[in-house]
C-alpha cells in the first residue's frame, strides 16, 4: 500500500514535471520567448566557458569537448529555437495539410538536429571553440634589471644592473625630469635638493624604456631622511 502510494507520487511528480517542461517549451508569448532565449544564451556561455575552464585542468578529457560544443551551440540554437522554430510550429499546427504534418514533426527534427550537431562539433571541435591556455608564449624577452641606490647626505647615487633590453633610463621626481640616460652604464647621481617632497618624504621614479620607447619597468623610491 505504502509502496504503491510512493510510486504513484513519484510518477505523478515526473508526469507533472514533463507537462510543465512541455508547456514552458511551447510557451510563445513575447516575454516567454525572450526569457527562454536569454536563459539559454546564459547557459550556453556558462557551459562553453566552464567547459574550457575544466579543460585547462583536465586536458584530453573528451567529454568536456561535448560540454563546450553544447554551450557554444545552445548560445545560438536556443534563441533560434524559441524565436523561430517554436512560433513556426505553433502557427503551422493551426493549418491543414502538409504544413500541419511538418509542424507535428518539426520540434523532434529540431532537437535531433541539435543533438547531432553537438555530437559532430564535440567530436571534431573547431579551434575557435577551444580556448588557448598557453600563457607563456610571449614574443618578447624577459627583462629583469636591478636598481641599487646609495643615499648620501646631499645626493642619491644609483646603478642599474642586469639591464639587457633597456634602451633608455629616465629619472623623475614630482613629474620633473632629472636625468635621461641613453646608453649603459646606467649610473646616475641626483642631488636631494632637486627632488620633490611629498607627505614629508622626498621621492623619485626611475623609468626604464625599451628601443620602441615603451616602458618596461618603473621603480619608485623614497629617500630616507
Amino acid at each position, binding site marked *: 500500500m505504502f509502496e504503491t502510494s510512493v510510486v504513484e507520487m513519484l510518477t505523478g511528480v515526473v508526469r507533472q514535471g514533463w507537462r*510543465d517542461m512541455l*508547456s*514552458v517549451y511551447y*510557451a510563445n*508569448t*513575447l*516575454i*516567454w520567448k*525572450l*526569457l527562454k532565449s*536569454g536563459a539559454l544564451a*546564459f547557459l550556453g*556561455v*556558462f557551459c562553453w*566557458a*566552464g567547459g*574550457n*575552464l*575544466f579543460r*585547462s*585542468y583536465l586536458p584530453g578529457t573528451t567529454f568536456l569537448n561535448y560540454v563546450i560544443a553544447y554551450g557554444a551551440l545552445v548560445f545560438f540554437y536556443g534563441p533560434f529555437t524559441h524565436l523561430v522554430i517554436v512560433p513556426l510550429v505553433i502557427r503551422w499546427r493551426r493549418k491543414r495539410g502538409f504544413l500541419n504534418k511538418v509542424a507535428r514533426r518539426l520540434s523532434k527534427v529540431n532537437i535531433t538536429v541539435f543533438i547531432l550537431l553537438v555530437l559532430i562539433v564535440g567530436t571534431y571541435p573547431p579551434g*575557435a571553440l577551444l*580556448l*588557448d*591556455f*598557453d*600563457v*607563456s*608564449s*610571449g*614574443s*618578447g*624577452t*624577459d*627583462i629583469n634589471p636591478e636598481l641599487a641606490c646609495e643615499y648620501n647626505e646631499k645626493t642619491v647615487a644609483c646603478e642599474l644592473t642586469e639591464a639587457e*633590453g633597456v634602451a633608455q633610463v629616465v629619472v*623623475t*621626481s*614630482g*613629474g620633473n625630469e632629472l636625468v635621461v640616460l641613453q646608453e649603459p652604464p646606467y649610473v646616475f647621481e641626483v642631488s636631494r635638493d632637486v627632488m*620633490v617632497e*611629498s*607627505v*614629508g618624504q622626498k*621621492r623619485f*621614479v626611475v623609468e*626604464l624604456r*625599451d628601443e620602441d620607447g*615603451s*616602458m*618596461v*619597468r618603473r621603480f619608485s623610491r623614497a629617500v630616507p631622511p
Partner: protein
Amino acid sequence: MIFGLFDNDYDEDGFRTCGVTGMEIHRTAENHVKVFGLTAVVALLVGGFFSIGVSMTRWELVGLLGSESFYKWLSLHAWNLLIFWMVFMEIAILYVGGPMVLGRRLPITKVAKLGWGTMVTGALVINYAIWTTSAPDQAPLLTSYAPLPSSPYFYAGAIVFILGSVLAALPFFVTLWQEKKWGEGGSLPLVTFGAFATAIIAVEALVGGLIAFVYAFLWRIEFLGSIDAALYRQLFWTIGHGSQQINLVAMVTVWYFLTHVVGGAEVVSEKVSRTAFVFYVFFINLGAAHHLLSDPVVSSGWRIWNASYAFYGATFASLIHAFAIPAGIEAGRRKRGQGGGLFGWLTNAPWSNPVFSATVFSIILFGFVGGITGVVMGQLQLNMTWSRTLATVGHFHGTVALGTTIAFMGLVYFVIRTMFMRDLAFGRLASAQPFLYAGTMTFATLMLMYMGLLYSVPRRIHSVVREIPGSDFSLSAAEPLMMIFGVFALLAIVSGAAFLIVALASLLLGERKVPGADLVPDGGVNFESDEPVHKFEMRGTFVITLIFLAAFLAVYIANWYFLSRLWEIGP
C-alpha cells in the same frame, strides 16, 4: 521648465494622495526625493561617460587611453558610479521609506538641503581633485591606499561628502523618532523597516569612512608624520565595502517596494523578511573583511571568523530575501487570479512596464551573477584564485551594475511616472531598455569573470593582454574573451545611455500625465480571493530556487576543485 518639475497638486496641508500607491505624500518629502534622485542621475551620466574610456582602454584592440589617463578615468568612473550615483539614490530611498511610506512631512528640511549641498560640494571637489591629479600625487581609484599619496583635495572632498550624507540621513531618523513618539504605534511597515536597516548600516559605514579619510587627510597635509597603512586599509574598508552593503540593503528594500506596487507582490511572511533585515544589520558589514583576505597583517582567525562564519549570517539573510520576494510575487499574483501553470504568474506579469522588468532583472541577475560569486570569492580559501584579477571586477559589476543599478533605474522610472508625473518618452525604447542593459551588461560581466578565472588577467592595469612590456610571459590567449567583452561593454554603455535619454527626455519633454492603470498591477488593487497570501502555491518559486541552488553548487564545487588542483601532492 525645471521648476515646473516640482509642481504637483497638494492640499492646504501640503499633502496629496498617490494614485498608484495610495500613500499620503507631503510636498517636502516628494521634492527632496526628486532633488536627490535627479542628482543621482547626473552622477550616473558622469560615471557612465568615464566608463567609455575605461572599457575602451581595457579592450586593447581599441586601447583608447595611456596608463596615467586610464587610472584617472577609472577613478572617476568608480567614484561617480559606486559612490555618488548610489548614495544620492539611497538618500532618496530613505525619504521614500520614511516620511512617504509613513505619511509624514519631511522634518528638518533645512538639514536635508544642507546635506544635499554638502554632498554635491564633496562630489565636485573629488571629481576636480582626481581630474587634476599630478605627480607626486596618484589618482586614488576607490581605495586611495596609503602610503601612495592622492591630492589633499581628494581626502577633503571625501570627508565633506560623507558629512553631507550623514546630514542628509538625519531627517529620516527624525521621522522614525516622530513616528514612534506620536504615531499610532505598532510595527514599522516592512519598507520603512528595510530603509531603517539600510540607514543603520549606512551610519556604520559612514562613520568608519569618516575616521579613515580624516586620518589619511591629516597624514596627507603632514599634520601627522606617518600613517599606518594596515590600519588605514582596515578603516577604509568599513566604508569601501560598507557603502556597497548600503546598496545591497537599499536595493532589497526597493525590490519589496516595487514588486508590490507594480507587480502585485504580497509579503508572504513579514516576520521572516524582517528577521532577514536584522541579520543584515548584525552581519553584512563584516563582509568587508574579504578585501583583506590576502592582507598579511590580519590573523587567520580574524579572516576565518569574518569571512567564513559571520558573513554566512548575511548570506542566509540574502537567501531568505531571494526566496521571499519571488514567492511574494507568485503568491500575490496567484491571489489576484493572475497565475496559471508553473510560471504563468511570472510571464503574464507587466513586462512592458520598465519599472517591473528592471526590478525582476535586478533580482535574477544579482542572485545568479553577483550573489553566487560574492559568496564564493568572499571565502578565505577561494578568494586566492579571484583576488586582484578581473574576476573580482566581474563580481562587483554583477552586484552593482546588474543588481543595484538596474533596480535603481526601475526606481527612477517609477519616480518619473509617479512623482514628476511625466509620461515615459520613447515608449518602446523605455520598455526595451531594461532588457537591453540587463542582457549586454550580463555578458560583459561574465567575460570579466572568465578572463579573471581562466587567465588571472589582472585588474587596474590599462594594458596587459596584448603585451606585458619587458616580459616573455603573455596573456594573449585571453584575447578572444577580451574581444567579446569589448563588444558587449560597448553595447552596455549604449543601453545605459538609452536609460539616460529616456529619463531626461521624459523629464524635460515628456507629457504631464497622472499615473494610473499603467502602473497598477494588472488585476487592480482588488484580490480575487480572501484567502491569506501564504495559502497560495509557490511551486514556481520553488523550482527557480532549485535552479539557483544547482547553479550555486556547480560554481562552488568547481571553484574548490580548481583550487585543489593548484597544489597537487604526490607524483
